């Protein structure tokens, strides 16, 4: 798994729970180094071992932890560049939902060798959507749910999200978009690159 993904897991654990929790996870998972590097690759079993160790150390069910990781990806202040990149996808949350199928290509534009989930969006009725996602590792459903919930907040939209089960490795997510202008949301101005 790409270092970005591993680094994200480490970053989430360290900023949310502190260095000691990360040290405990690292030792339980038997990691032979102190930190993941975002620009290197690691074997998948290493990623899975870290995640399982995190669930044990924090006494959290896997889905809850994955959802928190998804939310953190969008909301953590250190990851503002990532949130900005997501906001390039659309002018509203609805626009953003409709561009989800482009997310994989968008990710690869930024990091060419990143494993991105394949996402399909079906509109059921005016306000209901079904998202189907597939990734190299299980768990993209809850990650995406946390991420989308945070993006809805970011756009100021009110949306209900629910995991819709797994079919043949494809993880489903149901979205009901209740209000596209529920709150002010967070600001996003183009052209604010800080080198």
């Amino acid at each position, binding site marked *: 798994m790409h270092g970005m993904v591993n680094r994200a897991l480490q970053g989430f654990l360290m900023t949310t729970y502190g260095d000691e929790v990360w040290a405990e996870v690292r030792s339980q998972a038997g990691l032979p180094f102190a930190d993941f590097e*975002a620009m290197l690759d690691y074997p998948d079993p290493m990623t899975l071992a870290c995640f399982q160790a995190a669930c044990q150390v924090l006494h959290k069910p896997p889905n809850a932890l994955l959802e928190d990781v998804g939310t953190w990806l969008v909301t953590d202040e250190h990851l503002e560049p990532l949130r900005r990149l997501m906001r*390039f996808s659309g*002018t509203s949350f609805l626009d953003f939902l409709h561009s989800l199928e482009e997310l994989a290509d968008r990710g690869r*534009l*930024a*990091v060419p060798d990143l494993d991105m989930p394949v996402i399909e969006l079906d509109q059921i009725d005016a306000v209901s959507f079904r998202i189907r996602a597939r990734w190299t590792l299980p768990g993209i459903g809850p990650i995406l749910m946390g991420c989308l919930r945070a993006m809805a907040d970011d756009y100021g939209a009110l949306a209900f999200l629910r995991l819709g089960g797994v079919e043949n490795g494809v993880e489903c997510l149901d979205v009901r978009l209740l209000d596209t202008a529920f709150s002010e949301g967070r600001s996003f*101005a*183009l*052209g604010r690159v*800080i080198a």
Partner: protein
Amino acid sequence: MTGLPPSLSRVIGLSGGALDVLMPMHLWADPDGRVVQAGPTLEKMARRGDLTGLPIFRLLEFRRPSRVDGVQALMALAGQRIGLVLRSAPHLPLRGALTTLPEGTGLILDISLGLSFARAVSEFGLTLNNFSPCDQTIELLYLHEANTSTMALSRHLSKRLQAARAAAEAQALTDPLTGLANRRAMDAEIARCLDDPAEAFGLLHIDLDHFKQVNDTLGHAAGDAVLERVGAVLRQQLRHADLAGRVGGDEFLVILRDCEGTAELDRVAARIIAAIEEPVPFKGQACHVSASVGLAASVDYAVRPGPDRLLADTDAALYAAKRAGRGRAARHVPGALPDGCRAGDPKALPPVVAGD
């Protein structure tokens, strides 16, 4: 329009609103060069409200392919790539293409942000809504930001790797050429041996003879071959518990454990010298070197010396061996002048010790 095929000469009518949707940065001018309509994004960039009626040359400066300030000359650029700027923002180059309207009724100019798009978006305060979904400027901006972020990560990684390498080099204990210990490792081991009162050990200080000639006549690769050979000799001649290190260009130290006295050191030194004197083949040539050795045994000291003292004593003995004709060993006897030059000239010795 006469030369065009029928499908291209067909005239369609588009509302001003349609133009705004398709080309948010367009400008429609009448035959006198006055603005009939400007797209919403262009109006936002111009920052002077409604542009209707404004002479196009008061708003824009045309620079490429040539400076143009008349409507007829401008119309002649139809179909070409045009370089222009807003007069209110002359530092942000823009790109344009224009087409003339039928029956000489004017022209339509479409504009896009040039390579200064990132600055332009920021200075003009443009948003996602200001661009047509077909305009890839947003994707360029996205890429620009993504690159900036990933570059920062790469730089971060490079810095950490650099620091790690520096740390590893600083902690290294091995001489990469010979595989022997390095100076740092030898210093640490000598200090450890001296600290342990039960440790009876001997120290050989070896310096190659004629090594410079090998380097000068056969090149550094030959010199390296000789040094590697010496490394192999020392590993062969020593017991597992002993430690040999390369501590300078052609200088070596050997720690011999459980050393009864200098007689034993003499024997080991003689064996090592003989092995080093075996010619080293290098690319069809034979490299001939020898070695001089200064030695000292811890049992010969009534009081344990410090590491500097011990090394100075073996160094002095080594110098004595060199003075006595090279290819031999000399030993240091505490409290006395180094007298052990096996085939040496005693007269050469006193200045060595006196200056020590």
